[in-house]
């Protein structure tokens, strides 16, 4: 699902509501007639604040995410996949904006969650990285899972099943 809309339309608020971070005033959020709030362990949310501690290395951050979710992954393999080989022991604060974003997005390789909720995932990512992300989204959807993305950058048509355009209302 590709969510579009101008600044202030409520894209981030919608994503935060779906992922259980925002207390909405009315209505329910359900998946297959089950409240999504009961399935949070099956949801991966990567927002503007991605949970990366910049004083730690990429490896340390990944270990902490694994601790939080109880998942298992080969961290060195993921470091290679996100193109940070050789920088894995450098504190994240010394990396470029794009590399920091790659560290944040590495959770996509770690996570086994069925629903990915991603707020502006392409920010600071170069063309090669965007291509890798698109392939990853495609593979996730082809496996019968779900990706909800907001972005100001157009997504390839074959990647989008539903396009939800939010209007700005004052």
């Amino acid at each position, binding site marked *: 699902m590709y969510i579009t809309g101008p600044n202030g339309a409520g894209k981030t608020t919608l994503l935060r509501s779906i992922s259980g971070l925002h207390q909405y005033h009315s209505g329910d959020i359900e998946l297959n007639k089950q409240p999504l709030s009961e399935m949070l362990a099956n949801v991966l949310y990567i927002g503007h604040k*991605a949970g990366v501690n910049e004083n730690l290395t990429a490896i340390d951050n990944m270990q902490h995410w694994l601790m*939080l979710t109880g998942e298992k992954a080969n961290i060195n393999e993921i470091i290679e996949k996100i193109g940070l080989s050789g920088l894995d022991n450098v504190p994240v604060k010394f990396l470029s904006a794009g590399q920091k974003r790659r560290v944040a997005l590495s959770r996509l390789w770690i996570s086994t969650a069925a629903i990915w909720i991603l707020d502006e995932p392409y920010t600071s990512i170069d063309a090669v990285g965007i291509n890798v992300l698109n392939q990853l989204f495609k593979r996730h959807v082809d496996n019968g899972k779900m990706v909800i993305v907001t972005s100001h950058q157009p997504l390839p048509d074959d990647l989008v099943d539903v396009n939800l355009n939010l209007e700005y209302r004052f």
Partner: protein
Amino acid sequence: MSYLDYFCLSLKRDMQLAATQKHEFGLPLVFFVLVVLLVPLSVGPEINLLNRIAPAMGWIALILSMLIALPRMFAEDYDNGWLELVFISGQPPILAVLARMISFWLLYALPLVLSSILLVPFFQLAFEYWLVLAQTLLMGSFLITALGSIASALLLGSRKGSAVMALLVIPLLIPALIFATSAVDAVIQGLPNTGPMLMLAGISVLSITLAPIATEHSLKLMMS
């Protein structure tokens, strides 16, 4: 993963973060030591006066030193989004809150309580009186950590958090301060101090019990 494993791993993460920012938890300690060193220098070598003000100075130095650190309790994890991950991870957030409170107490409060031994040489405080004072400071450090965790959570994202923190926490510490100083005074005067000590312990236990729940709800409120 069991809750105990999650709690231990949260505690381990907090210690790892502290190791990368050693200067952060050194600052309150330096402040505490400076207060304990500077007050006798400015008051002068009047042993009776120094003896009399030593318990109060120990407590005031403890409160002010911890106020330096308290705004940082959850700030970094809030700023970088880690707290959001904790709340949607499916694990009980209260365990992470409890781990943070314990690690905060170990890293910031315990060194201050131990450093109060400096009151013995600099305020000419008898060692047996210091032992009583240290017990009150220990219970006070639990109390300040508990109350401070709630205030720290409520003030997340606030630019003037440090100033408001003092206004929120200090009035709530007044009863503890009164019981603590009266407990030490009673010992100095050769009277029993069980009453004020038990009152102080009761206040501390109540705060430690309720604070994690209140902090968890405050954090959730601040994130939505």
